[in-house]
């Protein structure tokens, strides 16, 4: 069994030592390993467990659909539709830059987008939110989406997601009052009104979409999913269902709104109108021309299109002329002048004044429109025939009576030069010329001369530096009509659930009271009624044959610089139990009776359901 040249080693001490060394090394190594395991698993186990769980979870935002906006009868004005958004997930994109560009080129060809633009957009979005998917196209057509899904292998990192998009079925109708939605911007994120809104969410950016955004936006949900190391979806762990936004019911009457916009479209194409309930301030219609289609904003609006919407040469359709248009109002202001003069005791309803066709004040001649001379008349007739000289005299007298600010005081009380408080963003307050205002600007060398009597004279007939919009006029007229309550115009009626059941009423703040003597009020209304019904009334020809009794005031504002006159009409109906006020203006419509009054009749016809009504243009009025 033993070979000759083999030595059988005895377990020498030397070998025993060496074996012991090896054994010791093994022991120490096992010891270290066991301690390390103990540390990792027993002592730090919880921490690692949390990390392991974290590794494989992703939270995906589930978008909530916005609440719908309906008119007072429940007709949907703004709804949602499901769009297909094309997105790219950053960690699935090819890391090689050339490959990425090739991918964008393939994608761009089918989406009709330039590859560099896709790259730029993706880069910009990833800079803000590095881990979320970047949207390449918000609303892609179905055949495009199918192509993308079919060619998924050629398009690594490209995904298609269902998103909710706003749809405006009536396009340009009511565009200014419903507004549009857009991505939330940095500034809005800091605003407490937008608490709970995250980057990438869409919020209302104008109109009631913005005003009532916190009701409309709902609450995004989240889905907790388990993913593997490549980010592939494995299964859903938990879901927090999104809550649809609440529905907003407006006081708007779609039929009246449509009629108003149709009427405006028939004019010169630049104007505005307001239809309001004089008792409670509910706005039944509010429109501005030219209008725009908010559906444009549902996708990411192109800069070119946006520029077109704000271009003044094209009428700047985004401007809401009903609340932002600052215009001289022409003779429609005479209601305010009359109120001021009566209430301050400058005249009584029967005080006669002489209208010889013109008035000379300090070297300036103020003429009647058309140079007509009306002779001696009192307030009612002055309103009916719209005698300028009568009101020039009132302006002159107001300028010197007492502190000389009677006209300004009453104009201010009736809301001129201030915000009406309507529930729309970006309302403008206009300008109420006053000595203090003018003198201040003169001192700053903005204006060339200080206040003079002529300014008050101009103001009395709604000319000069006055800047007001149809909404302010509507509120002023409504105040006189309802006996002295300055109502706050309101679009939002109530918040409802998606079935139309009320959740919350949107109450307007209580109306300010201005005391108006009932006798004076009646005198003014008589004058206005005469203007629309009596012979010689500036709008009588316009309302011939109209079944509803109307009281109204024409206005023709001179704009100077060779521009066409602005046409105005403010109507109150039905007389004598006035329920509604309609204020219309057309920027280049000429005489009030020529353009604005027929438009008002059109609107009133829709308002009162008068079928087959044909409005006729009146001739020269004031």
């Amino acid at each position, binding site marked *: *069994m*033993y*070979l000759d040249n*083999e*030595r*059988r*080693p005895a*377990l020498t001490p*030397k*070998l*025993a030592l*060496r*074996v012991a*060394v*090896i*054994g010791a*090394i*093994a022991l120490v*190594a*096992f010891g*270290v*390993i*066991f301690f*390390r*395991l*103990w540390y*990792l*698993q*027993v002592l*730090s*186990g*919880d*921490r*690692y*467990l949390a*990390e*392991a*769980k974290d*590794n*494989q979870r992703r939270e995906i935002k589930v978008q909530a659909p916005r609440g719908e906006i309906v008119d007072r009868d429940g007709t949907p004005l703004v709804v949602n539709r499901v769009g297909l958004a094309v997105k790219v997930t950053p960690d699935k994109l090819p890391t090689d830059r050339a490959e990425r560009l090739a991918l964008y080129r393939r994608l761009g060809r089918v989406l009709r987008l330039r590859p560099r633009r896709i790259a730029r957009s993706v880069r910009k979005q990833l800079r803000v939110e590095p881990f979320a998917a970047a949207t390449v196209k918000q609303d892609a057509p179905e055949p495009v989406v199918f192509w993308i899904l079919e060619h998924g292998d050629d398009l690594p990192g490209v995904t298609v997601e269902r998103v909710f998009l706003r749809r405006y079925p009536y396009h340009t109708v009511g565009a200014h009052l419903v507004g549009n939605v857009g991505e939330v911007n940095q500034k809005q994120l800091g605003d407490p009104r937008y608490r709970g809104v995250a980057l990438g969410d869409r919020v209302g950016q104008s109109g009631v979409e913005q005003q009532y955004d916190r009701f409309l936006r709902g609450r995004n949900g989240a889905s907790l999913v*388990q*993913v*593997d*190391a*490549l980010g592939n979806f*494995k299964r859903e762990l938990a879901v927090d269902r999104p809550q649809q936004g609440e529905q907003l019911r407006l006081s708007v009457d779609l039929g009246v709104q449509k009629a108003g916009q149709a009427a405006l479209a028939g004019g010169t194409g630049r104007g505005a109108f307001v239809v309001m309930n004089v008792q409670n301030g509910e706005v039944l219609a509010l429109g501005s021309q030219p209008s725009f289609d908010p559906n444009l904003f549902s996708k990411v609006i192109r800069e070119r299109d946006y520029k077109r919407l704000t271009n003044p040469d094209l009428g700047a359709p985004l401007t809401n002329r009903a609340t932002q248009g600052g215009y001289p109002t022409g003779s429609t202001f005479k209601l305010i002048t009359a109120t001021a003069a009566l209430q301050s005791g400058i005249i009584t309803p029967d005080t006669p004044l002489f209208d010889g066709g013109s008035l000379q004040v300090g070297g300036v001649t103020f003429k009647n429109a058309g140079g007509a001379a009306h002779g001696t008349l009192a307030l009612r007739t002055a309103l009916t025939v719209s005698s300028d000289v009568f009101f020039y005299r009132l302006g002159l007298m107001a300028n010197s009576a007492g502190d000389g600010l009677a006209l300004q005081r009453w104009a201010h009380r009736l809301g001129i030069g201030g915000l009406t408080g309507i529930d729309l963003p970006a309302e403008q307050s206009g300008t109420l010329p006053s000595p203090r205002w003018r003198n201040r600007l003169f001192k700053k060398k903005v204006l060339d001369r200080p206040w003079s009597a002529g300014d008050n004279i101009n103001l009395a007939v709604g000319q000069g530096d006055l800047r007001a919009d149809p909404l302010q006029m509507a509120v002023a007229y409504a105040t006189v009509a309802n006996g002295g309550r300055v109502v706050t115009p309101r679009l939002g009626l109530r918040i409802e659930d998606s079935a139309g059941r009320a959740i919350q009423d949107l109450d307007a703040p209580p109306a300010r009271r201005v005391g108006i003597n009932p006798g004076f009020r009646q005198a003014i209304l008589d004058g206005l009624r005469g203007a629309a019904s009596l012979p010689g009334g500036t709008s009588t020809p316009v309302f011939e044959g109209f079944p509803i009794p109307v009281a109204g005031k024409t206005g023709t504002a001179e704009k100077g610089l060779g521009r066409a006159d602005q046409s105005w009409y403010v109507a109150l109906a039905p007389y004598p139990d006035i329920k509604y006020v309609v204020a219309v203006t057309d920027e280049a419509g000429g005489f009030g009776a020529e353009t604005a009054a027929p438009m008002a009749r059109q609107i009133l016809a829709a308002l009162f359901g008068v079928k087959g009504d044909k409005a006729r243009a009146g001739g020269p009025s004031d």
Partner: protein
Amino acid sequence: MQASPLAPSVTGFSEPRRHLLRIDPLLLLAALGLIACGIYVVYTATRDDIPGSPNYYLYRQLAYAGMGIVLMLLLTRVDYSRIREWKAGVYGLMIGLILLVYAIGYSARGSKRSIELGFFNLQSSEVGKVLLILALSAFMVDRMRRLGDRETTSRIMLLALVPAILVVGQPDLGSGMVYLAIALTVLFVAGTKWTHFAALGALAVAAVVVVLVAAPAGGVQVLKPYQADRLTAFLHPTDNPKHQGYQINQSLTAIGAGGKTGRGDDATQTKLNFLPEHHTDFVFSVVGEEFGFAGAAIILSLFALLIWRSLRILTMSKNLYGTLVAGGITAMLMFQVFVNVGMTLGIMPITGIPLPLVSYGGSSVITTFLAIGLLQSIHAQAREVAAAKGRDLAL
């Protein structure tokens, strides 16, 4: 002394197949225990890897284990000493197989490490470990008279260095390091002077410095960058969460998350693609996550048993060759276990060394069973001799 004149037939009692009775039962227990646990761990780790084929890896590992066990049992009956005569051939075979990989090797993940044999990829660097042990021990026995010479030590080291460098070029850094560990242990067990080891140690430090610091600074890349990174990543894993440090972090998270008794089916960290190589290099992370501290302790205890028995066989070997072979095998097992487990725990560099009998892989399983078979052979031979001596004395 010649063989005992008292042949078994003379004594009058039959001794059926003596060598089978003289195996080390604890060693067998440790080996079978480990392969059984290993197969189960590979199964749970990989059952979701290939959709539709949950048993793909299971069946294969079972087949490898089967082959390995058969080979082990066969080796047990053989007298290992005979291999000593073939030392040159064994060494040549080893070099040949390694070179063959360069010629016709199959590339997986950019490395040519194995030769395709139909259903089975032979990793020659794995088999080479056993071949090297057999050859090197033989060469060492021949030079025992000149043990104290520096020349002996350097010759042995050189003999190991050649295949080591060849496999490192495949690249298989881990196997190269195992070859060196084998050589050092064979020298150590043979009784080489401590001073030689001191010198070798200094040389090793110098080599590390050159390879990792000086040469790159001078523009010479000895190791591929990723290899160098892998070696040093364990020192600062959080620096590089996406790359080299990633594996370590994932492994630590997985093991730590296992807690005291493991996450069982919830052990998703090691599945779901978070930890690559979860059935091969990082299989211990699976053990840690799924079976917790308890499971890991069991596996480690089985390894401890294995190494203990291996050392014991080393001390009882009938001849020097057996002692050295057992020493080499002990080195191979210890090095692989400590480096692999240490790697998953973040205290050792990443080197691509498999965990014996647990990591998935035919070559490693079979090589380990060959080694254990050799150990059993050494044990059986030693018992045989002792029994014979006993019988001799009894007479």
